């Protein structure tokens, strides 16, 4: 099989195992490309991509833009912290206006869950979801799995704990779907107020004691607390959160085995992980960032090849 089963990347839940395998194999190639002296290939010279960010983003937007440019695509950027609805224009109208300038693909980040799915039903372009509310962030999950595969050889059979604000996290949800699809075991860990009540029905373990969770896992993916998505305080103070769910070097060194630390960024140093953990040899946080470009190149390349058909 040499093409994706989907025309859009809306979420991991819409992919199959072979899709993930294909994306990883393609990313292997692009990772080699971006480490060459000339980091660019001409593959998408005839493709125009719009990056629409209706929510603040720095690293994801830069990573996508870099991936697009390394594939020689034409790129336009649109950023607005305000959602289109607040400005009085509907999302469909905003995107159709941009598409009428002959754009082939839309990379979109949006504060509402399902915005990408909604758009894919109403506009004629290939859609890449760069994060939709607390729903999915598929390229992040792909690069996370890719980084685990790089470190351990395969994802299958590995034990991964996702720590922190699971309730508001699209990274958590996409990671759960991606890891399970590849045969990994997944646990979530955090204060009960930040764990969805029915998450166990997705087949994940739930743990509220961080030490127990870390002793169980091979890899800990530490999430940021998403204060911007909270309508009420879900815990009394950051200090108290860190006391229970922050990883410091002392805790890391006291575990039964050497685990790997991941973080989707941006890190709140001293909150979910301390600096010495973030910068330790057990951390693969910067590898994740580099793999992000290769993964996004792979996704865009594979979707673009379906447009050309």
């Amino acid at each position: 099989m040499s093409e994706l089963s989907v025309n859009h990347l809306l979420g991991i839940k819409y992919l199959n195992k072979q899709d993930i395998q294909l994306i990883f194999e393609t990313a292997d190639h692009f990772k080699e490309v971006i480490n060459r002296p000339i980091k660019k290939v001409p593959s998408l010279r005839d493709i125009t991509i719009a990056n629409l960010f209706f929510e603040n983003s720095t690293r994801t937007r830069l990573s996508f833009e870099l991936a697009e440019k390394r594939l020689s695509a034409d790129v336009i950027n649109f950023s607005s912290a305000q959602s289109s609805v607040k400005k009085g224009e509907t999302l469909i109208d905003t995107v159709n206006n941009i598409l009428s300038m002959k754009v082939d693909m839309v990379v979109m980040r949006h504060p509402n869950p399902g915005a990408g799915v909604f758009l894919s039903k109403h506009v004629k372009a290939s859609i890449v979801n760069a994060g939709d509310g607390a729903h999915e962030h598929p390229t992040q999950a792909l690069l996370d799995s890719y980084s685990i595969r790089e470190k351990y050889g395969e994802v299958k059979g590995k034990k991964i704990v996702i720590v922190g604000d699971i309730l508001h996290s699209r990274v958590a949800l996409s990671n759960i779907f991606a890891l399970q699809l590849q045969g990994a075991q997944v646990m979530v860990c955090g204060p009960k107020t930040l764990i969805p009540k029915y998450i166990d029905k997705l087949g994940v373990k739930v743990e509220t004691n961080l030490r127990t969770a870390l002793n169980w896992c091979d890899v800990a993916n530490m999430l940021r607390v998403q204060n911007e998505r909270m309508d009420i305080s879900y815990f009394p103070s950051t200090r108290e959160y860190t006391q229970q769910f922050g990883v410091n070097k002392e805790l890391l060194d006291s575990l039964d085995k050497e685990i790997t630390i991941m973080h989707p960024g941006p890190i709140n140093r001293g909150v979910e992980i301390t600096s010495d953990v973030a910068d330790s040899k057990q951390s693969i946080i910067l590898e994740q960032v580099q793999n992000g470009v290769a993964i996004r190149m792979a996704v865009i390349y594979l979707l673009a090849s379906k447009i050309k058909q």
Partner: protein
Amino acid sequence: MNILIKSATIIDPKSEFHNTTQDILVEKGIISQIGQHLKNPKKYQEITFENLHISQGWFDSSVCFGEPGFEERETIKNGLKTAAVSGFTTVAMNANTHPVIDSNSDIAFVQSKAQNHSVTLLAIGALTRESKGEDLAELYDMKNAGAIAFYDYKKPIANPNLMKLALQYTSNFDGLVCSFPQDNKITGLGVMNENITSTSLGLKGNPNLSEELQVSRDLFLLEYTQGKLHIPTISTAGSVSLIREAKKKKLDVTCSVAIHNLFFTDDIITDFNTAYKVLPPLRTQEDVDALIEGVKDGTIDMVTSDHNPIDIELKKVEFDHAAYGTIGLESAFGALQSLFTLKKTIDILTKGKARFGIEQSTINIGNALNVTLFNPDIKYTFSTKDIISKSKNAIFENQALKGKAYGIISNGQLFLN
């Protein structure tokens, strides 16, 4: 009105002709003869339809027509036409208009718009001024103007003391208070049922707990005040249990359920389809089973279409931003028949009136004719061509339904589709 209805199977347990096929002669709006092979010497209009059935006129306890203020969603005129085509002779219209129906002149306006129509429109007044949940509206005055109940449509009364006062105050004049079963603080930003589907879609959940807390609270207040309460559109198994227990205690409480909450479960919302965004939200199979049991054993007093036309601009948007609601009059009979027997369906469609103080007219000689004509056996897939409403937000689109109305005879008028 003089007509002869030919070969109609009468479905009316209170009639001596129940479950028999008869001709019905109507003179000056009154049933003058019921019998086999009636003659028509005066050449009255004859009504004949394939597999014609006839029952008492159907009643819906909760519809929205948008007028005044939201005529782009629906007008009273077209709303009543929709009701007639769908077989309803009486509908209770909610106060969620702009301005809100919260005074006697508002009630009079709505009634004037429905004058001389075959469908009787009953007005529900707001419980609080502008439905803001702060101060009681002029309930006594509205009752005198014809309001049949008081309800801030889908807006819970957050202040328990205000609900207590409403129940006490209305008992002076036998007013019926309605309370939407939701605790807004628990619901928070929830937009669908809290469960596995909301979790996997990343949508905020609205848990059963929210509804059941409010129902519990209202039942405590009812016990204290000994007032008269109707809880519209319950959706959880827990609510059914709570109300069942309250009825055992002889509290004066009734409740309803929306047809779509009997038909669908939350797992149908797999791709963020806003047609399924309703309030209360679609729940689980366990809830649906308990609700159907509640309808069967009489714990739930009435089933409503909860007809709420919403224009496409408020539906064709991201799920979080989409308005709640679905139209339901057109699909009500067909959907109910997919869930219940014909006898039970007709019972459901005709029995809610008494709670609102409206008299029922049985199909017997000497009575005025207030009936629905229908064919219970037509099978069809509900589609946009079946929609009469101005707005097309139909949760039942593409569903296989059974049974259609032919029309109504009501208020001395014959309305045929």
